[in-house]
């Protein structure tokens, strides 16, 4: 196994932090009521159909990809999917900001927030910026790497 230097340690930490924040956020969404989430998504400007679809898809994606990111499974693919998702969400938030719409959010911890637009925009940018080092440098201690290193052993049998 390669030596862990400061950069890869930083990558591992960001990977774990972002992954767990997605995991918790997904859990919160999965436990929240569908009606409240639909209210939030339609508030962002999505159609009723898309909002209803998001209610089912988003928690599953956030929980599982968050968990994959923590364990480093399909690390690069997960980072790419999550970054794309965040970028789309950021666009939705920005157009809501331009239209001066109040946005509610289901936060990571604690209580539901009613006016969370600026906080969400800031958090999103931060997450996108952090996902890059997580994908690029957080490659040590990943399941991807561990499973790859065991490959030879299995083939020899």
């Amino acid at each position: 196994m390669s030596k862990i230097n400061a950069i890869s340690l930083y990558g591992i930490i960001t990977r774990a932090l972002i992954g767990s924040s997605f995991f918790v956020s997904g859990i919160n969404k999965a436990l929240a009521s569908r009606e409240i989430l639909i209210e939030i998504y339609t508030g962002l400007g999505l159609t009723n159909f898309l909002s209803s679809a998001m209610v089912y898809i988003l928690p599953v994606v956030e929980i599982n990809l968050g968990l994959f990111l923590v364990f480093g499974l399909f690390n690069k693919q997960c980072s790419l999917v999550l970054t794309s998702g965040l970028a789309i969400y950021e666009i939705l938030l920005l157009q809501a900001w331009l239209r001066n719409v109040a946005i509610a959010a289901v936060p990571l911890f604690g209580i539901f927030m009613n006016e969370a637009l600026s906080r969400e925009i800031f958090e999103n940018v931060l997450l996108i910026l952090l996902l890059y080092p997580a994908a690029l440098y957080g490659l040590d201690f990943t399941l991807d790497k561990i499973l790859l290193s065991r490959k030879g052993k299995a083939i020899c049998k």
Partner: protein
Amino acid sequence: MKKEEKIYNARRIFAAFLLILFSTLTLVFLKALHKGVIMPVPSYRSAGAAKAAIEIYEYTDLSCPACTMSNELLHNVLRVYGNVIRLHFKHFPLEYHKWSKKAALYADCAGEQGKFFDYANFLFRNQDKWVGEEQEPKIFTALAENLGLDKDKLNICLNNLANTKRINLEIAEGNAKGLEATPTFFVNGKYARGPHSLIEQLKASGYFAKQTGGLK
């Protein structure tokens, strides 16, 4: 695709399956504990200390007799331990109580004029006078007049769809948390169903043992 690659991918997919299984089990476990995000209540529906050691969310139905009991109990507890408890009142009108939702709406509108607890407590104590009514109970407007509420403001509030929607979202929140009956409480996030369970949770919080007398 090479054989090694196939095995490597199969292993990754198996690991992914295990992680998905883990997340599903976590979700089922949390659901069983009635966990979930709580929407804030309007400030007029909260009572007690602003920064309290014990935060109670009460999901209640103005037509339910057991809720009257627990409401009395909670207000007595608040009178003594108001400095350490914060109570948040959540509407959870049950479908088969004909006037519960309407009563909740009236109470909220009274709340907008600073009389939420006066209005709700009166409705609790006088359930026999309105719960079984066929037509909309006259007590709703009579009580508003008795409490000196501004009629125009009250009507505007009653016709405001946002207020009805808030109550509907609270019902949806309760359903998502798996609530089946009223009253149900969350004492610092811990589930308690019924007044006895509430007392047990309050005792379990350990705070009251330190107070003089404690909770009997």
